[in-house]
Each structure stands twice: as C-alpha cells, then as structure tokens.
C-alpha cells in the first residue's frame, strides 16, 4: 500500500479515478441544483447545459414554497425526529445502565431479548403496530409517528456497551457521595456518555428524518407530513409539469441534514455507521 517513493503516475491515476467516481456520486446533486436554477423553458429543452442561461432559482423556490407548505413540513420533521430522540434516550439510558452495571434477576434474559430485537427489521412489525395504533385511535397524529420508535433496542445495546467501559469505581464513588441509582444515570452516566449519545442522536435523527415507509402508512392529513412524504406528494401532483419547483423543493428537504453533515462530517459518519460497530 504505502510506497516509500510514491510514483507521481500512481498518485495521478488515483485522483483521476476518484474524481470520476465523485462526479458520478455528485451528478444528481449538481443536476438538482442546476434544474432548480433553470426556468421552465430551459428545463424542457433537449440541449444539455449545466449552467442556466437565465437564473431562476428564486422563482422556483418561491413557487415551491407557494405550492406546498414546506416550512410546516420541515417543522414536522424537526418535531418528530427530536421527540423520537429525546424519548429514546429517556427510555434507553436507564435500561442500559441497569444492564451494564446492576445485578438483578432476569438481566441476561432481557439483554438477550435486546440482542434479538436488533435483528427485527422495522417493516416486520408494521402491520400489528399499525393495528395497535388504529385500535388506540392514534393513527394520523404525531403520536403515531413517534410512539413506535420510542424504544430503540439498538440504542439500549449501544449505550450498554458504552457504559460497560465506565469504571465501576465511578459508580461506587457516586453511591458513596449519596447519589441515587436514578441520579447516577443522569448525573454520572449521561455526562460520561455524551460522545456515544451524540453519535446515537445523529444516527436516530438521520434515520427518522429520512424515513418514508412509516409516515406513509400512518399519515393522512397534509399538515402532519414529514419532509420525505412532502416531496413524494409534491412529485405526484407536479410530476411532468414543473420540475424546477420540484427540484427546488427536494433541495430544501435535503438541505438541513446535508448542511449539518458538511459542518460536522466526522461526527455524522461516526453516527451513521454505528451499525458497523462490532
């Protein structure tokens, strides 16, 4: 791999190949921005050009925001992802602490169930959970979007693994200092686990911001739509006619995560590839 004297030819080949691949990866993003910046007439011309002759990004954005309540959908996305994450942490952290640091009857069984739960793909439980929400009269609400995800077995597993690395002495010191078991979770373990919680938070927020399947199933009302659902509906009502505003809308929907990613890419990559931790 590492050559003592790098041959320039090799280095050049590396860049040529990687740039070619990068162009392929970026093509949709570039095409999206390009199309979102073109007026209708330029979009529907068979002549290919990347830079619009006449910039129409503002018009397209304005039209997108006029046709769909994009701000509302973005807000929905924030409400849903943040609620899910906060509840996941509130449920998972105490359980993870107990699994990692306390001895109690049934601990091994519970942990085995957690490990088993990780294997269950979300689509597998969709029908019964849907029926459950239907019976509870909760369909088509924020609750329907949030409740099924309040339990993250993966989060429990991850935090439990992290808590295992926290020295027992620290927990004992906290007990000697008079902190209750519940207090230890929030006052000692949570601050110690901030990096792991952050990584899990990114994982969780990205997954649920981008989720399409579940909102599609449980939502009916327009005002509750999450960003992916909003794009899909926009596309269904506008396809074939106004690609400019559609691309502008797509841009708006992916912008929050992509911008956040560009600012903290190391943390994001860490968070999203969490499932890669053995």
């Amino acid at each position, binding site marked *: 791999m590492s050559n003592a004297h790098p041959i320039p030819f090799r280095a050049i080949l590396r860049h040529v190949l990687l740039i070619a691949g990068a162009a392929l990866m970026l093509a949709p993003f570039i095409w999206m921005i390009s199309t979102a910046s073109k007026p209708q007439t330029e979009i529907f011309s068979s002549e290919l050009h990347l830079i619009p002759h006449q910039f129409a990004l503002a018009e397209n954005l304005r039209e997108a925001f006029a046709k769909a309540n994009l701000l509302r959908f973005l807000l929905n996305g924030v409400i849903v992802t943040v609620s899910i994450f906060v509840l996941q942490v509130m449920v998972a952290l105490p359980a993870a602490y107990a699994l990692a640091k306390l001895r109690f009857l049934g601990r091994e069984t519970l942990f085995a169930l957690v490990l088993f739960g990780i294997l269950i793909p979300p689509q597998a439980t969709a029908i019964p959970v849907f029926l459950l929400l239907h019976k509870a009269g909760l369909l088509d609400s924020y609750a329907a979007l949030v409740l099924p995800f309040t339990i993250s077995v993966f989060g429990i597993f991850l935090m439990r693994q992290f808590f295992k690395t926290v*020295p027992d*002495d*620290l927990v*004992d*010191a*906290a*007990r*000697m*200092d*008079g*902190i209750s078991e519940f207090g230890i979770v929030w006052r*000692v373990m949570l*601050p*110690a686990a*901030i990096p792991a919680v952050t990584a899990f938070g990114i994982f969780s927020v990205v997954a649920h911001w981008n989720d399409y399947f579940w909102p599609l199933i449980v939502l009916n009302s327009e005002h509750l739509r999450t960003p992916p659902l909003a794009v899909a509906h926009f596309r269904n009502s506008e396809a074939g006619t106004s690609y400019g505003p559609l691309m502008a809308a797509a841009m708006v929907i992916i912008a929050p995560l992509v911008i956040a990613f560009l600012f903290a890419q190391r943390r994001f990559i860490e968070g999203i590839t969490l499932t890669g931790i053995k």
Partner: protein
Amino acid sequence: MAQIELSAIRKSFDGTDVLKGIDFRVEDGEFISLVGPSGCGKSTLLRIIAGLEPQNSGQVQIDGRPVDSIRPSARNLAMVFQSYALYPHLSTFDNIAVPLRMRRLSTIERLPLLGALLPSRRAKERHIRADVAGIAEQLDITPLLRRKPGQLSGGQRQRVAVGRAMVREPLAFLFDEPLSNLDAKLRVHMRAELAELHRRLKATFIYVTHDQAEAMTMSSRIAVMMGGELIQAGTPAEIYNDPGDIRVAEFIGSPKINVLPGRIRKDGGVDVLGTALKLSCSAAAGDCRVGVRPERIDLGAGPFSGSVVHLENLGAEAFVHLATEGAGLRLIARLADVRHVPAMASSVAFGFAPDAVRIFDPAGKRIEIRLEQAERIREPAHV
C-alpha cells in the same frame, strides 16, 4: 469516634466463598492495612464495610451501631478508589463539592436550572464553596480547582480524590489500592503524604493493598488476608517478626523469607540439611518447614555451604542467591556491606543464629521454639 466492628462476615459470588467469616475490630483513629494477594477478599471486605456490596451473613457495626440496612452514603464513610473515580465531566471544585451538594441541598435545589435560582441554594452554595476552598488549601490543590480530571496528573487526581473524601468529614476513610496506578517514585512520595494526612486528621483509616511495602510503611496495624480468611493482625513489626502462619511469613518481606525443609526429632531437636539446629520444640516428631529472613543469613561462616548462582548488587545492599550443595535448594541472603560480595559460582559457607529461625508445621502453622542458652552464647564466636 469511629470504631468499626465486623462479625462473622461471609460473602460468596456464584457459589464461590470469597469471605469465609471475618471477625475484626478497627479501633478509633487506627491506620489499618488490609493486605493480601489478589483474590484474597480484601477489596470485597472493604466494599462490604462501605455498603457497596451486601454481605451474605454477618454484621458490620460502626460505633456500636449496626449499619447493614443503611445506604453507603448514609454510613458517613469516605472512600478513595484505585482509579480515583473522579467525575470526568466535573471540575476539581465540583468533584469535591458533590458529596456536600448531595447532603446539603434538597432535590429541588439540585435541579439544573431551577435550583440555581433559589435563594436558599445560593446561601448553601456559599458554605460549600468555603468548605471546598478549605480542603483545597490543605491539600495544596487550590490552583487546580477549575481544571477537569482529564487535565490533571495521576498524583493530582489522587489528591482531588482524597479531597472529595475529606470534605465530608467522614467517620472513617476507606482506601482501595489508591496508589497502584501511580509510578514507583510517586508512590513512595504519596505513601509519606497519606501517613502525614493520617497523623493530621487522626481519623480511622482502612487501607486495602496488595503491596506489603505500603502496608509495612504506613499502617499502625496490618491485617493479613488469604483465601477469604483473616489469618493474622498486628503491628508491622509483629507481623514481620512473629508470623503466625507460613503464608504470612512468605507474603510479608521482600525478598521473600527463605524456607528450608526441616525435621523435628523425637527429642524435640530440629535438623536442617543434615545439621542439628541449636534449638528445640515440643511439637511431635516429623517434617517441618524452617524459615529464615534473608538479612538473618550470615555469609562466610557456618555449618552450611552453597554456591553463588546469582548476584543483585543494589549499591547500598546486595542480594546473594545461593544454591545449596547436594539438596539444590535456593536461598537469598542480604548483604549489608557490598564491599564483600562473593564472586559468582564461588562456594560460600553460611549459617544463621537460632533466634533467626521460625518453624512451621506442614500445615503452615507456627511452632514455638526454645533456644539452647549455652549454645547461643558461643554463637558469635563464629563471626
């Protein structure tokens, strides 16, 4: 006044007996070391005293009051851990303040944002600040108060951990191998500091260590534990000179005590390597083990001889490793005067005074001996 009494403490983990009935009493103001090899149960015993681990049976009393149903923090003991166990996200100041805040502030006052607004909390915080500052002064860590544990050296962390223990003015201090994470030089320094702290506070110290040198140098009394039992307790000098069990003799002292196979004759005399020792005992005839400390072996004269197989010259003293002729036993002799170190592979005569000898039965129990008076007077003539 904190006197701690343990009676018949038993503990087992998953069917393995870790503590097999410990009875022990720590007097007020004592510096007592619990010493023993790893796995002997000393740390478990300390954790039971602290209340971090429930015992299976037996009782812990502090000042005559049973504390078995009392939570760790309510026992009013302080503990210093091997890894220091400082809260990594809190500054030195906040680390030391934790026990005070937990004790003095109500649940509402401890709430993150709301609590800070309460006037009652502000008054209490003033007192806490004063107390922490006082402790920091004593331990010479005032400049470190705003730093996080990650920015402190091992010795500094150690001091902060001691500060966190001191600030609550506990009935007793429990130390769980607190020096084992430090390098050798710092360890010696901290040994002196802890002994000094004990003299100053006059509090009860219970100190767990596997390092017999720490136990010997700091404590007023040592309790030696082996295999879940407390086998001997006494002052460092008693433990060193008067071991009641061969395991104690072997554990305390470095280099280890020399153990030679011996035989008790019918008349009570004792033979070692074919030579009769000038002492007798009243034990039954049979095999026994004869222990002699390295510094009690006299090189140059005596009834035994061996060849030098290894030399360790430390400058101020030297250790001579001998292999006895014939039996092939290994012994270590300490030589105070390094100018007279014998040559490697040379043959050396050696002996030891009868009062240097400690005799143990095959089970390891100590056998009392009588010295033969007349012989003892003649002994110095050899040298």
